[in-house]
């Protein structure tokens, strides 16, 4: 009987060597350990034995059974590993060296520059507002202390519409509405007016690489009980340093704008040469950047604010000019061209 065990063992060990896949192994398991399998058959034949012999034989068969089970699971693992390796090897190494497909959209450069400025002002507690592009003579001139026939109206060639309205020639046209909107909060709750209102402006002039009839500005105002020239310089310097991300030197010169008194032209130290003098700043070391000033008492009055009690400053930043400076755009007409070869380059920063 023991010979029979050895014979089965011998036969299995060669069979398991030759098994190549999971299916063959399963067949082997059935052939040896299944209900009609040869090892099962051995166990059945044990009935004929007795006593010590039966016990001994039983042990031998169990040993064989364990050997076979282990061999099959060992072989199964080996085959699985091989299959995994084959699967891994069947996939090539992918090539990432080709240029990636970005398929990205783009913002208009004005949007990017405007947002940068807006963020700086928001961080200083300013609200950001929008205003209409078509305004009345009152909004654009009268309320800004520019009465009819005032020479200041000569300075800007305004597009007038047949109904007497006009395309706003300056974002200052939004000032009166801002004062009216927030005067109650200012007077009754003591909340200072701090607002910026970017917008599109229009001037009736011939276009070329440096001149556009349609361009963007950003107006800012701050009104409270004790706003001073000193504050104005602080805010302009701080804001511009944030926008240009470096310490900017500013200087004020007297400038005449009817809606401010005193009015200033604000220059910043040249961004290219830092003030040494270069062709960009015509060797002066300074760039004329934005008009600003203390809000004219008549303008506050028109907005329903008592100039004896409140003072404030206002400024107008040229967004178009800022965008051109920042990105080195040489032809102002590119901005309204819709030409994606230019404009698609302005993804967010």
């Amino acid at each position: 009987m023991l010979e029979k065990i050895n014979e089965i063992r011998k036969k299995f060990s060669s069979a398991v060597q030759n098994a190549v896949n999971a299916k063959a192994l399963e067949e082997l398991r059935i052939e040896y350990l299944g209900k009609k399998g040869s090892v099962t058959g051995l166990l059945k034949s044990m009935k004929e034995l007795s006593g010590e012999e039966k016990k001994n034989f039983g042990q031998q068969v169990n040993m064989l059974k364990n050997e076979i089970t282990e061999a099959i699971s060992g072989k199964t693992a080996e085959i699985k590993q091989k299959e995994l390796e084959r699967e891994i090897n069947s996939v090539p190494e992918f090539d990432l060296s080709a240029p990636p497909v970005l398929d990205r959209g783009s913002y208009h450069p004005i949007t990017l520059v405007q947002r940068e400025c807006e963020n700086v002002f928001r961080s200083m507690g300013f609200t950001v507002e929008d205003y209409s592009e078509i305004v009345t003579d009152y909004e654009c001139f009268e309320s800004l202390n520019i009465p009819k026939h005032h020479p200041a109206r000569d300075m800007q060639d305004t597009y007038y519409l047949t109904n007497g309205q006009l395309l706003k020639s300056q974002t200052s046209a939004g000032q009166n509405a801002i004062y009216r909107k927030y005067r109650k909060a200012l007077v009754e709750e003591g909340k200072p007016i701090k607002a910026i209102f970017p917008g599109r402006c229009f001037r009736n002039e011939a276009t070329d690489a440096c001149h556009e009839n349609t361009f963007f500005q950003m107006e800012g105002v701050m009104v409270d009980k004790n706003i001073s020239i000193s504050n104005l310089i602080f805010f302009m310097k701080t804001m511009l340093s944030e926008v240009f991300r470096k310490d900017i030197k500013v200087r004020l010169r007297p400038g005449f704008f009817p809606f401010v008194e005193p009015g200033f032209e604000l220059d910043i130290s040249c961004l290219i040469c830092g003030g040494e003098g270069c062709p960009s700043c015509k060797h002066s070391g300074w760039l004329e950047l934005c008009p600003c000033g203390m809000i004219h008492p008549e303008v506050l009055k028109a907005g329903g604010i008592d100039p004896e009690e409140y003072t404030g400053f206002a400024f107008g930043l040229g967004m178009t000019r800022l965008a051109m400076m920042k990105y080195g755009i040489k032809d102002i007409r590119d901005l309204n061209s819709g030409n994606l070869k230019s404009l698609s380059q302005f993804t967010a920063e």
Partner: protein
Amino acid sequence: MFLSMNWISEFVDFSGLDKIEMIHRFSLSTAEVENEIYMKGSDISGIVVAEIKSVEAHPESKKLHLLKVDAGKEELVDVVCGAPNVRVGMKTAFAQVGAKIGDIAISPRKLAGYTSYGMCCSESEIGISDDNSGIMEITDDLANGTDIKDAYQIEDIIFEVDNKSLTNRPDLWGHYGIAREFSALTGRPLKPIETADLSQFDSLPSIDMKISDPLCQRYSCLQVDNIKRNISPVNMRIRLYYCGMRAINFLADLTNYLMLEMGQPMHAFDSRKVDKIRIRRFEEPFTFRTLDGVDRNIDENTLMICNGDKPVAIAGIMGGLDSEIVDDTTALTLESATFDAVSVRKSTVRLAHRTDASMRYEKCLDPEMTVTAIGRFVKLMLDADPQSRVISSLTDEYAYKYPQIAFDFTKAFVDRYTGIEIDNDTIVKTLESLGFGISVENDVFSVVIPSWRATKDITMKADIIEEITRIYGYDNFDVNTAVSPLYPVRIDIEKSVEDCIKDLLVKRFSLHEVHSYVWNYTDEYKALGIEAEDNIRLINATNPNIEVIRRSIVPTQLCQVKYNTDFADSFGLFEIGRTVDGVNPETNLCNEHKKLCITLFSKTESLERLYLKLRDIIAVMTDDIKHMPVFFENRQAVHSYQHPKNLNTVLCNGKSIGEIGVVYPTISKKIDKKASVVYAEIDVVDFAEIKANNIVYDEPSKYPEMEVDLTFMADRFAPIGSAVYTENSPLVKKISVVDTYKDDSGKSITVRILFSDRTKTLTREEVSAVTDRVIAKLAEKGITLKS
């Protein structure tokens, strides 16, 4: 305006000060100075006064002469000269050997066989006029050999002030006013202007003159005669030339000189033509020939100077040809007047003729100046031409006098406005130096505004702040942040919605933001076959192509799409811009709208797919920003660019917020023969105004959900969707389209309905009850389930 430092220095003693540095301070405290400062005369040296002792014709040249000149040396100098005006006894400017004129160094030079030891110079070569018709003729009594730069004020510093920065300062349109600023900036006193005492002529007859119109504020005049001098003194001519004017003759030069010195325009009439001065307007229009020979149309608003009834000058702008001073003029009538600034400005615009005089009158000149200017004129005239005579008394009518302006302000006011400490002494000194009357008591200042600043420039306290601070110097300011209370920043919903839209379209859908103009591009529309719809117009557009304001962004964006067809096979554009929908008849104000316009262009995707893609963009937008679904409703096309079949209203929260459509086929083909083009236009304000839904948390069921797919023979999803929605079963969580298919039997749509119950495990019966009712409802409408 060009300014001469020599001229300014006549009124303020600057000795020991750096003049260039002063000009920079002036630019920071008064008015913008252009970058380039001209150092006149610095490029010439070694030019002396010399007398021509002999003139011989050159044997071989018709033009050249051989001269011997006395340049103050022991020996006469041989000079070859080509100028036509050489003559013996004439004194001229002579560049000796070793002299420099610009880059040229004078050395002995052979000319047509003769050596010239120096060069006789024209005024143009020295740079003191543009006259190069001959060599300079010096009539002043100067010793030979005198350096010409010692004899005349050739060396000067000339700087240019931007006229725009002087619009509010009538007092700065002459050197004397500028000198006052320099005086305040340097603390050096301003000398009074020297004038002739006009009272000495009081006994002479007066001029028949009368102001008959309120537009003339003051008219002062005086008659002079026996003017013998024709050419102005050299120094006067140099100043005029350096300041951008040509010398004409003594009399004309003198009026110009006065204007540049005091800012007061003057005019001289031939006394034979003007003996009865009347200042008035005319009811009937007529033409008038000005002294430049141009016929100008005069209307009823133009103020005229007349001799009796006959116009002789346009007040404040230009004199007439008929009354101009001519060669045989012996007596002339000098006008020094002020006119209403707005009237002069309007006449200037109407006549399209701006002169140096009108430019000044527009700024509201000080009427106090007219008589001083005549006094100055007489002084300069008598100095340069002692034989000339005044033959009338000063005749002066002062019709409108500006009220004197005086007010008080406190130290606290100055402190509050400036935010820094400027002491009382500094305030008083500054205002005094600018000519203000000023006194201070207990921190209250009383100020009287000088007449030259009181015509419109300074009217109130805030104006005084500028005077104090600009002279104090903004560079000297302590810079401080504000001490205002802090409150949260108010968020403007419209602005934030706009930002969200832009981010979504750029970041998620890879669209490109563009800007366009607010008017119709009439020519470009025509090329694409888009009708340029009429709308409100600009009245002063320089180009008829951009005259009409657009009603929609779509056409302008289609023009931009056309421009970009070679940019990529597929791309999308968007803009948030303005449109105008006519004028509100009640308010007469434009109906301005803020619109979002999106256009998708593709050469690779089908029209349907592109249209659906755009629909999804809109749906994502309303979902993302307002947590709200969007619906579409087919509508009739009314604009040339709209597709008759595929045009839908976009509905959100039950109201229309815009439209989505396919571009009209012929326009689409003109953009690109094979491409699909679709667009959407959304009213940003209408959209922003929708109140956003909050997020309502729906706790997921712990029991298994069940999905049921049903395929119906149907063209459109809408009836299936509404059949499911009207069931209103709490078990239905979601319905989606998983497939659409078209075969011989027709179009079929497979929908997937997701069922879920939070309280228990779903039973097949519950689900079937719902689906059975849906199937039955649809069957009634003829929509059958596909077997």
